């Protein structure tokens, strides 16, 4: 990286008359004008004008200001930043798939429908659930869809219920999704192991509770070992168990949510199934259910008869449509490619080596950083800045200093039940060398915190920009470029 590159905004290098694209000459008459009666615009004020060379350099330079998985370890906890196999980009871009129109007659898109059906089936096998929808565009969208299914089922009993139980370690999307479904949230405390407190659950679980939303392993990276008992408690009162599958990377081929009493599950294809995060999407959040909830899945549903695929929108109990068309198809193709490449042993090895790698890091950093919960870690481990606080150093300082070592920081300040959290998820695709680089960097930073805390408090030192003023950004928001007057 060349730190001194300063790339202006495209608007600042724009000059009248420059072009980076041309169309062939219009080959039909310019008349008639059928836009008569519509309000037309003149110029698109402020829109840029640059050459193709300038476009390529602009975005190439911008790209070089990004850290990414292709560059190194990206240990964001609960984000599962694993390597994205390149072949899957090629598959998604196949012209027969990428060029297919979603409104095309079904008999002309049998291949695309087969892609959808095959992934649904494979996810069902991996999750131990009876039916899947691939429509949700991301994890949070999957949560919303899943909770709507539960609500629709309960609506039929004339009592949709009022509450959803959510552990205090849950992702912020859980309460937000439950809320859009019309539910109030009751928080369940974690016990000293960092798992759901059964006593607290038994106390809160009654006939007013629609569901428990549980992440397993939870956001501490701890497996809810009482999960079967938890499901019994919820089911005994007529409630449903919703599992947030963000952390499925610890489970693939080892256990199946459906076998543990989970009724509804969302999976993040952009986490567990290796599709790239794209700097914040597109993702895909398929939702799986037990048979009882299948009639409520969003329309359309893909059906197969004698090897012919079609889409069924006539499902009277369905919650309706949750997005246009059939989901983030291009992401679905990539996930299918990944599962087929790995096969059964490879799917099991995801969990095995994700958990081994996380435990290797945990072992390497124990003693250097504070570990609030001694419970065994699965695919991630959560340390805190408690030891470093003595020297006035926070998890933010540690995170920023890691950048000077050429590494991406862990997830910070989450889960909320660990103060000053550093949540580390290496994933299974990392080499030992990359894991060791991270461990050594973290140890060096722990030493620096003791010996030279100012070095951390002023970090990062070697990045394109240094610590940014986020308070000022929120106080006086500047959310777009404007021409200087």
């Amino acid at each position, binding site marked *: 990286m060349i730190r001194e590159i*300063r790339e202006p*905004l495209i*608007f600042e290098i724009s000059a009248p008359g*420059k072009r980076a*694209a041309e*169309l062939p000459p219009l080959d039909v008459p310019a008349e*008639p*004008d*059928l836009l008569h009666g519509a309000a037309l*615009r003149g110029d*698109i004020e402020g829109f840029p004008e640059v050459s193709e060379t300038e*476009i390529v350099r602009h975005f*190439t*330079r*911008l*790209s070089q*200001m990004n850290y*990414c998985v*292709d560059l190194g370890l990206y240990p964001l906890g609960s984000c599962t930043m694993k390597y994205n196999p390149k072949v899957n980009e090629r*598959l998604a871009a196949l012209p027969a*798939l990428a060029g*297919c129109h*979603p*409104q*095309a*007659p079904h008999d002309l*898109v*049998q*291949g695309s429908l087969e*892609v959808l059906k*095959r992934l649904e089936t494979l996810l069902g*096998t991996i999750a131990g659930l009876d039916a899947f929808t691939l429509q949700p565009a991301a994890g949070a969208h999957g949560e919303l869809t899943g909770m709507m299914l539960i609500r629709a089922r309960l609506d039929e009993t004339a009592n949709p219920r009022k509450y959803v139980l959510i552990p205090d370690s849950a992702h*912020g999307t859980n309460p*937000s999704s439950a*809320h859009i479904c019309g539910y109030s949230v009751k928080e369940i405390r974690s016990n000293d192991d960092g798992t759901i407190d059964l006593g607290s659950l038994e106390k809160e679980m009654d006939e007013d509770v629609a569901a428990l939303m549980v992440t397993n392993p939870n956001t501490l990276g701890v497996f809810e070992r009482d999960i*079967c008992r938890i499901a019994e408690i919820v089911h005994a009162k007529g409630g449903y168990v919703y599992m947030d599958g963000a952390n499925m990377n610890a489970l693939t081929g080892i*256990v199946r949510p459906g076998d543990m009493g989970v009724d509804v599950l969302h999976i993040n294809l952009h986490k567990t199934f290796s599709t790239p995060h*794209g700097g914040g*999407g597109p993702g895909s959040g398929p939702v799986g259910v037990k048979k009882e909830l299948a009639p409520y899945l969003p329309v359309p549903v893909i059906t197969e008869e004698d090897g012919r695929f079609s889409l069924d929108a006539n499902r009277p109990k369905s919650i*309706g449509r949750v*997005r*246009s*068309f*059939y989901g983030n*198809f*291009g*992401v679905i193709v990539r996930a299918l490619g990944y599962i087929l*490449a790995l096969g*059964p042993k490879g*799917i099991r*090895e995801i969990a095995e080596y994700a958990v081994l790698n996380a435990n290797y890091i945990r072992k390497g950093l124990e003693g250097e950083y504070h570990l609030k919960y001694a419970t*065994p870690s699965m695919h991630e481990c959560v340390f805190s800045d408690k030891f470093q606080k003595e020297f006035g150093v926070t998890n933010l300082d540690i995170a920023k200093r890691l950048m000077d070592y050429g590494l991406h920081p862990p997830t910070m300040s989450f889960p909320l039940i660990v103060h000053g959290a550093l949540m580390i998820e290496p994933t299974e*695709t990392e080499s*030992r060398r990359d894991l060791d680089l991270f461990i050594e960097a973290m140890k060096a930073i722990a030493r620096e915190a003791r010996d030279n805390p100012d070095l951390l408090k002023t970090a*990062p030192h070697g990045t394109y920009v*240094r610590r*940014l003023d986020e308070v000022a950004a*929120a106080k006086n928001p500047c*959310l*777009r470029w404007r021409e200087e007057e």
Partner: protein
Amino acid sequence: MSYLSLSDKDRKDMMAAVGIASIDELFCCMPEAVRLTGDLELPGPLAEPDLVREIEGVAGRNTFGRYLSFLGGGAYEHFIPTVVDYLSGRGEFVSPYTPYQPEISQGTLQAIFEFQTLICQLTGLDISNASLYDGATAAAEAVLMAHRVTGRPKVLMARSLHPQYREVVRTYIKNLGVEAVEIPYGRDGRLDLEAFSDLVDGQTCGVLVQSPNFLGVVEDVQAVSGLAHCAKALSVAVVSEALSLGLLEAPGKLGADIVTGEAQSLGIPLSFGGPYLGFMACRKEFVRQLPGRLCGQTKDVDGRRGFVLTLATREQHIRREKATSNICTNQALCALRATIYMETLGRQGLREAARQCARKTAYALEALRGIPGVTRKFAGPVFDEFVLEFAQPWDRVAAALKGKGVLPGLGLGTAYPELGDCVLVCVTEVKRKDDIDLLVQAVREVMS
């Protein structure tokens, strides 16, 4: 194919370091009763050449590519300059997470800032978010936003709003005590303003009007906004064909308070319906009610310009159940594609592409309406889609044209029973005169 990076020796050494004799020990906290005892019944593993062959085989069962298609209806084929794929395919853009650590994510953040600016310029509004899932969920988010802003329980939706968008709105509001009422379209295909003014009242949080609407007709957004504002309801302009904004007046300048919709047209492949690109822009007084991520400009400790995600107190990870939306991961890479597309076409190119769509559409419509048994259904102004009515049953016409290798457009009978023998035809700049003439000739033969 395995993507692991550990040698046998690494595994052994690491297990020793962790203090386990077998990998199984890592999972001892899981209940024995539910532990899988063997491998799952899954296909594979496939080496890369076999994987490519396998998926190419599946893709080969799509025969859509052999047809001359005039399908639109919420997904549009436009030419995508090579630089869009080339640049957006760079690993530095494809493989990072959401830019939570701004110092090492300036590339993604600056691109989002440029995207927000471009969307503001196109829509004529002050603020744009960093993207939403797609046009349908964006429309639903706009309804929830109008509901939050006004506190009112009723939303009006044009019947000419994309049928799938209407369905998604209904799914989203079902459990929130918001009621949706449809406004009919008039004889010219535009929103029936009289019916609208009867329906809009003090209970109305907003009106959703799509322009060009699902029937291809450009709406009078100014008149709709004026009526909405009389009732202190928000005017929400929905755009599903974003390229139309190259030619049509920015809805924000016609009184729309929120402009939202689908930007697939701006450099994103059809890809059987996704991933696409929801977008949303609004007036600045509503910024705290806007859903989704926002990127803002700030300075670093040395006073240098930089960009960060900001106003996060609206979002789920801070506000939890009180957030403006549950959205977390959005469609960032699609927004990047749209940014590169818009900047590549630029000030002149975007207008030119839009102008060619309109001209070719006009050429096709004029030629088709001259065929006996074919009539133009709506007289309102059109951009790159229009509705034709056939004097023969649509199923027969469609089958006969398909036999000639032509897909004339989307039959409307399923979504609009009153338009049973009507088709929505879409002509964009990628169609040449020859293609259009071929369509016209085929229709002429089928109708004779």
